């Protein structure tokens, strides 16, 4: 059915407004990063662009170390989630065991609790067992963010693969790991890519956990950005630079995987 020109016009008008509304803070952040302190609070778009903020942040602070820290904990968290989550999703899809649905729901429920709720006991526990302010500690706690998504998306993918396909491969003389690499992995790949990258973005943006469970040796960029709020002054320009550079990998990732993301999260494995 062809839509009328009127509804087409209004629909797109609405989308344009919505895009402006959603993107304006980002736009403002980028603007701020090019402003000098003197012009920081002007609300006109006319100012003399300067790269001072970039030079200050990128060359004279430990911003890159923080960037690297973020990469390590987020990347590590996603890798660990993949290693554990793929077999877990497979087991939840294929095997029947007592308490299966409860377990699956519990994994999902990690997403429900506000981070602040669990972080206080975690601080105490982490201090006791020596995980406070370590890469391992952060990677571990990030599982709360990355694992549920991965497990639930992949479970659906595995459920869509008929078990007979695996049995056929078994009859054909393949070992379980060969079946996984040759048959299952190609089928779950879109979901795996989408879920892994999405959970990477969630982990990358994580703020509460790294703020409270690290901060001396390991400082992810999300936490580092706070440092620009000093006792006497707030360095908006530098903060904007930090935020802009931090957002870059996500923007790039999102653009690269856009197609996978939509397909991977909305399509089954063997449909179509």
């Amino acid at each position: 059915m062809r839509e009328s020109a009127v509804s087409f016009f209004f629909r797109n008008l609405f989308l344009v407004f919505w895009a402006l509304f959603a993107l304006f803070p980002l736009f403002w952040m980028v603007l701020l990063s090019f402003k000098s302190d003197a012009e920081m609070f002007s609300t006109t778009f006319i100012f003399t662009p300067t790269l001072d903020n970039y030079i200050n942040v990128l060359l004279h602070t430990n911003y890159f170390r923080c960037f690297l820290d973020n990469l390590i904990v987020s990347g590590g968290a996603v890798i660990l989630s993949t290693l554990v989550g793929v077999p877990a999703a497979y087991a939840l899809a294929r095997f029947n065991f007592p308490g299966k649905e409860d377990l699956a729901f519990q994994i999902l429920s990690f997403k429900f609790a506000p981070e602040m709720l669990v972080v206080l006991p975690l601080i105490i526990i982490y201090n006791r067992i020596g995980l406070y302010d370590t890469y391992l500690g952060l990677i571990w706690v990030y599982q709360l963010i990355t694992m549920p998504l991965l497990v639930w998306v992949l479970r659906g993918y595995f459920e869509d693969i008929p078990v007979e396909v695996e049995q056929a491969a078994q009859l054909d003389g393949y070992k379980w790991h060969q079946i996984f690499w040759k048959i299952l992995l190609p089928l779950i790949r879109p979901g795996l890519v989408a879920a892994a990258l999405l959970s990477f973005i969630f982990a990358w943006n994580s703020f509460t956990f790294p703020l409270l469970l690290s901060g001396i040796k390991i400082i992810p960029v999300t936490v580092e950005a706070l440092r620009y709020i000093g006792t006497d002054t707030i360095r908006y320009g530098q903060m904007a630079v930090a935020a802009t550079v931090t957002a870059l990998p996500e923007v790039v990732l999102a653009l690269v995987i856009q197609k996978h993301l939509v397909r991977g999260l909305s399509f089954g494995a063997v449909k179509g």
Partner: protein
Amino acid sequence: MAGLTFKNVFKQYGRTKAQQVFDADKTVALDADKSVDATVRRVAAQIDNQYAVNDFSLECPDGEFIGILGPSGCGKTTSLRMVAGLEEITRGEILIGGRMVNNLHPKDRDIGLAFEDYALYPPLNVFENIAFNLRAKGLPDEEIRRKVMEIAPLMKVEDLLDAKPAGLSGGQKQRVNIARALVRSPSVLLLDEPLSHLDGKMRQILRTEIKRIHKQINCTTILVTHDQLEAMSLSDRIAIMKDGRLQQFGTPLEVYDNPVNVFVAGFIGEPPMNLFKVGIIGNARERYFHFAERGIKVRVPDKYGKAVFPGDMVVLGVRPTDVLIEPDNPAATDAKVAVFENLGDEKRISIEVGPEDYLTLITDNEKRYKPGVGIKIIFRESKTHIFDKSTGERIQGE
């Protein structure tokens, strides 16, 4: 090439280990304690109901085409999967070519299985699907190519080799599925409802194909199906199963002409056999089946003279084609036509023998009958079956 044997095979329904141990204990108790009391007997009955396949024995000689036929849930697919090694065998033995395979890995059993819903490998094209097994064996490329090219024309899939499974029709998928089972030159080919997902025309084409392929490669083949027509047309012999138990095993003609019980009689044949609970009346010389509600009497064939007596209740079974219209026969029974259906090459006449009970007869006689008119019928004596009314077993005549 090898024969296939089931020896008293049992398959328990999926149960936990603990439950199995419990059942085993009870079985032992049952064997030890011969003074069978009521509780133990009840447990025995419960255990009996836990088998998806119950004391199943079957001998399939080398090269034969055996159909396992039964309604859904009768254990036929489970039996097949036990041969393939996809289900554990609770008790009993399965032998392929005289070799016990109970504990062999599926891949070492030398069987080819065509799955009901094809189970092709979606990421691979048709060629690689067929070659998948050969790749596992690590055969050199040119030999794989040669073998696939041998099977592909046989299954008429040579034009599809580059296609992905998603782009194939149901019939094509099933051809690839069977090709994949055949390419490893199995001792026993297992077909699990190969035609059930296909539409009428394709079903017929592929049925002929399967027959042709079996003639060509002459491999012991087990076909599992719920469609009696399929089993009748393809099999050298048919095993009919119900509730996990083998009912009858014989050639299509045997099971059609001499069903061992009411279940087999009713399951084989289209339209189904007329089965009615009737009384026996008469005297020492002349006995009649008596449809009490409509007062219809039909002579009991002489061969049952020593098997049934006046006052008995039996189940009478006679196929629609064995009810004959004989207006001039003095022994014929008077009846009234209730429904007349002209199906072109055959005519079906229904005769009311009780409330909601109709005796169907099929004739190729050109005469048309109006509902309500009188008709004289007799049962073909040699094809009139009677069954015990409580056990359902056939009562043999002389």
